[in-house]
């Protein structure tokens, strides 16, 4: 029998067919493996992507299509607008998009320059926006993106006034759904010479960014910071404020008071390129609950028509988008979905028109397509979350751009299809009344009735 090194992490035990195996609910195989891993390494696990646990989500809601009491639009004949305008509160130049589906902030560093270019090209083709990330703006993404949102993060890596001036909007990032309260993280194997240069860091170090902004603290300061950004940009550009979903009702109110044009609320299903496992799975609240709280905060302040709300965190399908809009969002942002559209977790990548198997590289990471969350490693088998000069060539910008464009187009078509079925000439006319919930949890979180009843848990009795 082969022996393992003392510090090796044991894998799942292999058993014969005749053994009686009673798995513990509390100490199941996942938890046993977690404890064994912690005992072997003394370090917590860092991984990419978002929460993998089951959470109440948009899947737990259903639309009430039109019938006798509502009048539908003809699916292939009557127009349903998806035009979306963001930043109407104070900005002289609000953003007008052709779809409410935008691309979320993801850094050059976590992603390759080819990927950033592909996302910009896809967003431009779809007349929507894409967003920079922790690490600054690359020339590739600026040149390829018609509408680019420039993030102002606690680290301020690569943040500079020239890029502020050439951005179309500024997004002040307070937190993200995968790790509200945590700073960015980029492990050394992804801190290439170019990434290090843009971030003013030594090449190859494990980079841990700040979780607090360097020049302001608290909501009163934020109001002054936003005014500074408005002064620098001559009040032209919309200012977004992005929060990770925790105390959403209060945070949204504070962001409104601080002067945000647009508020981005990122639920706990939101992705990350590298974060501690315990952070991803145990901090924050689900997107479903976050949307309702954010909308209630805006309605409470009578700002629903003045301040736009973007929701992100686990948005995957056109139905998800429609449900977010019906709950009161003005737009959504997608990160993981567009990475998967690019080829993340695919078993192959495309080179010069040919599919090439990536299975061997997944296996080197100890995983397979459909399960991979090793963005933190820098060894992305399909060349997306990498700075490796060989691996990054696996994502050809033209191929990636086409796939993301197709994905965003599909979602927009699904969105308008559902809106028409609910009798809406504009996707922004979808409303809470169009929704019911499949579970009591979802009904309580989303604030819509349990299907077949008028009961919204926490809001009195119903039938």
């Amino acid at each position, binding site marked *: 029998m082969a022996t393992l090194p003392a510090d090796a992490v044991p894998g799942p035990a292999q058993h014969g067919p005749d053994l009686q195996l009673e798995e513990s609910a509390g100490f199941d195989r996942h938890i046993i493996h977690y404890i064994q891993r912690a005992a072997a*390494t*003394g*370090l917590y696990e860092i991984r990419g992507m978002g929460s993998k646990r089951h959470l109440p989500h948009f899947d737990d809601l259903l639309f009430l299509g039109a019938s006798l009491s509502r009048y539908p639009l003809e699916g292939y004949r009557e127009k349903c607008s998806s035009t979306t305008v963001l930043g109407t509160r104070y900005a002289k130049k609000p953003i007008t998009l052709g779809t409410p589906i935008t691309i979320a902030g993801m850094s050059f560093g976590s992603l390759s320059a080819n990927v950033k270019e592909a996302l910009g090209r896809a967003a431009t083709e779809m007349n929507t926006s894409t967003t920079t990330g922790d690490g600054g703006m690359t020339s590739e993404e600026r040149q390829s993106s018609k509408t680019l949102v420039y993030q102002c993060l606690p*680290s*301020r890596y690569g*943040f*500079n*006034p*020239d890029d*502020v*001036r050439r951005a179309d909007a500024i997004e002040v990032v307070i937190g993200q759904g995968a790790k509200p309260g945590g700073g960015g993280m980029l*492990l*050394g194997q992804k801190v290439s010479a170019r990434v290090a240069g843009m*971030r*003013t*860091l*030594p090449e190859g*170090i*494990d980079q841990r960014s*700040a979780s607090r902004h*360097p*020049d*302001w603290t608290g909501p009163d*300061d934020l109001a*002054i*910071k936003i*005014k*500074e950004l408005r*002064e*620098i*940009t*001559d*009040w032209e550009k919309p200012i977004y404020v992005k929060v990770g979903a925790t105390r959403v009702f209060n945070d949204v109110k504070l962001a409104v008071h601080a002067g945000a044009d647009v508020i981005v609320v990122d639920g706990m299903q939101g992705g990350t390129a590298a974060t501690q496992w315990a952070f991803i799975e145990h901090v924050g609240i689900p997107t479903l609950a976050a949307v309702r709280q954010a909308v209630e905060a805006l309605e409470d302040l009578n700002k629903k028509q003045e301040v736009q709300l973007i929701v992100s965190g686990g948005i995957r399908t056109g139905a998800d988008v429609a449900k977010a809009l019906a709950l009161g969002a003005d737009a959504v942002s997608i990160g993981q979905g567009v990475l998967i559209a690019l080829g993340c977790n695919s078993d192959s990548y495309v080179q010069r028109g040919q599919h090439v198997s990536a299975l061997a590289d997944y296996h080197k990471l100890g995983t397979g397509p459909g399960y991979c969350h090793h963005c933190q490693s820098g060894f992305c088998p399909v060349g997306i979350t990498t700075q490796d000069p060989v691996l990054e060539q696996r994502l050809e910008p033209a191929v990636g751009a086409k796939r993301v464009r197709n994905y965003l187009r599909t979602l927009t078509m699904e969105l308008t299809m559902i809106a028409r079925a609910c009798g809406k000439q504009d996707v922004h006319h979808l409303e809470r009344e169009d929704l019911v919930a499949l579970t009591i949890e979802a009904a309580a979180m989303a604030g819509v009735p349990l299907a077949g009843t008028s009961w919204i848990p926490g809001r009195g009795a119903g039938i």
Partner: protein
Amino acid sequence: MVSVIAPVAQRIEFDLQRQSVRELNQYLHGDLSGVQEVLVKNPDGAHSLAVGLNAAVRVDIGGHAGYFAAGMNKSATVVIHGNAGPGVAENMMSGRVEVAGFASGGAGGSAHGGLLVIRGDAGLRCGISLKGADIVVGGEVGSFSAFMAQAGRMVICGDAGDGLGDSLYEAVIYVRGKIRSLGADARVEPMSERDLAAVRDLLAAAGITHPASEFKRVASGRTLYHWNADAHQEY
């Protein structure tokens, strides 16, 4: 249309008792060819004075400034003839910013280039996330100064508060007075000839006189550059 008062050849005056910060900044973002100096009268602690400048102009702020004075400065020289609120010269890229009096928290935070001179004391977190600029402080600095400072130099002529240089990267700090405590991974190192020359040059640029030999060098021990289970997450 910006109305200016008492125009003198090459010198423009703004009076913030009668004109707004918006008018001032809009003017400073316009075509400044031929303008050498802009005097801002009655600033009265207003926020965001002379922010986002992108020209080699001199701006004199005739009194106290609020938050973010000369924020994101590029190329300009901004002199504050009083005290400055939090975030003075934040994210400066180039040029020169001077504070005649005291500077509040986060002075020069994340500044990439240029020179910030504070003749009095600086508050908490001076030079936080510094990314390449130089800062000279005539007096003391508050706690957690140079926190996570990545590049650039700080000269502190007085004492430094707690946690100086916590989680430093490649920035270097020179301190003449006492250091109340060093932050994680910061350490005192010997002064080389290069360090002495750097201190002399920076003091000369700031117009402050002290012997370079009286300064200590503080730099990163570089023990936090990679994950390390033995560090017990005490950082």
